[in-house]
């Protein structure tokens, strides 16, 4: 596997560019050439989830067109990867370009999924001892079907202790537009998630998804918690990069 495409996702582009850079570096470190097409915007998930399928399709079409070659498309997000891999075929069902979209969807991977399942990378931990905990993104696991790939990568790091998070598979309360349409329920879920994360005694909460990170981080900051969040790509890259 010599070349791959990288799809930033809008949340990583705007809020977590370091995670995007780290993802690209991890792929390069594994000997892969990364192509980063111009013209990327959003996978279209927010409109799709709200029922505005024409609008979602319009945007999705422009994104699919950026990846014409038969190469894997790597995303630093389980939720957006789930949208492109699982929901694009539904969204384009019966459309004239369904076949092309399906072919594109088959090439989509979440970053850690690609690092583990395809590249089988071996990481060497160069960092100081640290205790972290893991937040499992609902869409990464339930939509896309991640099977512990990010935890497997973290497990390769000899100086990292992974503390189990109570109710690891419970939603953090983000849910895209849900967070502003139902702010009370969403806020209650986020506060519980933040409290569970704090009680692990870890200094960092890691996840594959910018939405969850943005949500949990905002909640932790609001309660002035010392616990920080980080995208798993950024964490892995920081600990394994040769200095």
């Amino acid at each position, binding site marked *: 596997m010599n070349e791959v495409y990288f799809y*930033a996702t809008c949340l*990583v*582009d*705007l*809020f977590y*560019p*370091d995670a*995007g850079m780290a993802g*690209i570096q991890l792929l390069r470190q594994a000997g892969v*050439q990364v192509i*980063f*097409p*111009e*013209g*990327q*915007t*959003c996978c279209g998930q927010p*409109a799709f*989830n*709200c*029922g*505005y*399928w*024409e*609008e979602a399709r*319009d*945007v999705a079409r422009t994104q699919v067109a950026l990846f014409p070659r038969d190469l894997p498309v790597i995303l630093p997000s389980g939720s957006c990867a789930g949208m492109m891999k699982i929901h694009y075929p*539904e969204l384009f069902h019966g459309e004239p370009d369904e076949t092309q979209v399906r072919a594109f969807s088959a090439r989509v991977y979440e970053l850690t999924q690609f690092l583990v399942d395809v590249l089988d990378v071996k990481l060497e931990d160069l960092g100081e001892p640290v205790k972290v905990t893991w937040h499992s993104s*609902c*869409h990464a696991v*339930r*939509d896309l079907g991640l099977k512990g790939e990010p935890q497997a990568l973290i497990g390769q790091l000899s100086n990292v202790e992974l503390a189990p998070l109570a109710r690891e*598979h*419970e*939603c953090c*309360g*983000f*849910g*895209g*537009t*849900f*967070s*502003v*349409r*139902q*702010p*009370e*329920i*969403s*806020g*209650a*879920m*986020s*506060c519980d998630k933040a409290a569970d994360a704090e009680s692990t005694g870890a200094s960092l909460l890691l996840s594959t998804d910018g939405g969850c990170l*943005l*949500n949990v*981080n*905002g909640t932790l*900051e*609001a309660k002035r918690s010392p616990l920080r969040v980080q995208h798993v790509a950024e964490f892995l890259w920081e600990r394994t990069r040769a200095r």
Partner: protein
Amino acid sequence: MHVENEVIFRDAAAKALLDPQLRANFRRAMDGLISKRLAQFPDPRDLQDLRDLSTAIRSRSLLNLPELLEQFEAKATENGIQVHWAETCEEANELILGILRSKGARTLVKGKSMVSEEMHLNDFLERHGIEALESDLGEYIIQLDGETPSHIIMPAIHKNKDQIARQFSQKIKDAKYTEDVDELTAMARKVLRQKFLEADAGLSGVNFAVAETGTLCLVENEGNGRMSTHVPPLHIAVMGLEKVVARLEEVAPLYAILTRSATGQAVSTYFNLITAPRGAGEMDGPQEVHLVILDNGRSRIYADPQLRATLRCIRCGACMNHCPVYTRVGGHAYEAVYPGPIGKILTPQMEGVGVRHDLIHGSSLCGACAEVCPVEIPIPEILVRLRREATHEDAGSNVAGKGTGRTAIEDWTWRIWALVLKRPALYRVAIWFATRFGKALPAGAPLIRNWTRSRTKPVPAHRSLQERMRAEGGRHD
């Protein structure tokens, strides 16, 4: 109408969230149910096999629903069960009132039935001078307080032992105050035993109706189902028209997955198979058995190939037990007969997607419900479909109230969203502004205000990833 209804669930949920006792009751109960269920499915492959089989049985039953209903009616009638059909709840209520009046019945003792809740049968009968007493312990508890069920399997789950102790000491005649669960149960039992003996009629729900034998299956734990259907001279059963399965052997896997998913039990304490009224020479059983089969919007749901999956439901309640929203707000916040994830897809389809727009958006689409559903109902997918239906009037769609949740503001939001995101040059400008001035957005701006109720304001990076990649001169092709 839409704007007004958008907030029913939000407001009720916000109120529930302020009640620490309620939240603690639900969290404890749901955590317990989750671990009990898990203990019943030690091998995920066995669980998946049983789900696949159950899903296949329910899907096939629905595929042949009209034929199976006819076959069931013929067989049940042959067995001596009198079958009635009701298109609406009003019709079903009138039918039941008619049956009761024809027998001169004044008192009705009820086993647990969610369809009767759907019909608001108790209120209806009370208005017509007939006393309807709930005999399921949970239902009995909430009836004392004039409440509705907060869970489809455990209707009084919102209350803890101490609350029930106080309530019994106030509401049951000559009851002394005790927090001992066995003593509390014995108190209710004493009242109910007498009612079973005195009641003119009994009413029950139905878990499965078997077409080949004309049998009604009833799953329960307290024996009140058997008492309600067995002791009074008249038994009336009510069910939704989706409950039928073809063969008796298909009930076994459905029953196995129902009790395990619902309460984490390998079997329930009672499993009743009701096939006929009391026969000649038999010592017990009702002299007459009637069955009311209710539509109430189900045939409309049935007509849509995707939404039909809603009717696979076997009412185990696992979706609510595992729902992070339900766990926090409880069942009453939904202001609907069926709460939780299944209620979020069922209620809007029955009452209209625009009217209950609040419910279909009251989900983070986390998928915990679909993951545990014993008959694999894709609840998040159906929620997204109903969001579509609420805001569009697609030709060919038969969904109740389609398009009635549409607002100009949401239309324009997504139009502008698409306008920007399908033009990378515009996106680039928007991101440039966000990275330079995003910090300056006031925390009290619309939508951001909702976010910052419990969080700090999200702050964009100084330079976007795309800007940095351009600066790096990376490969773009």
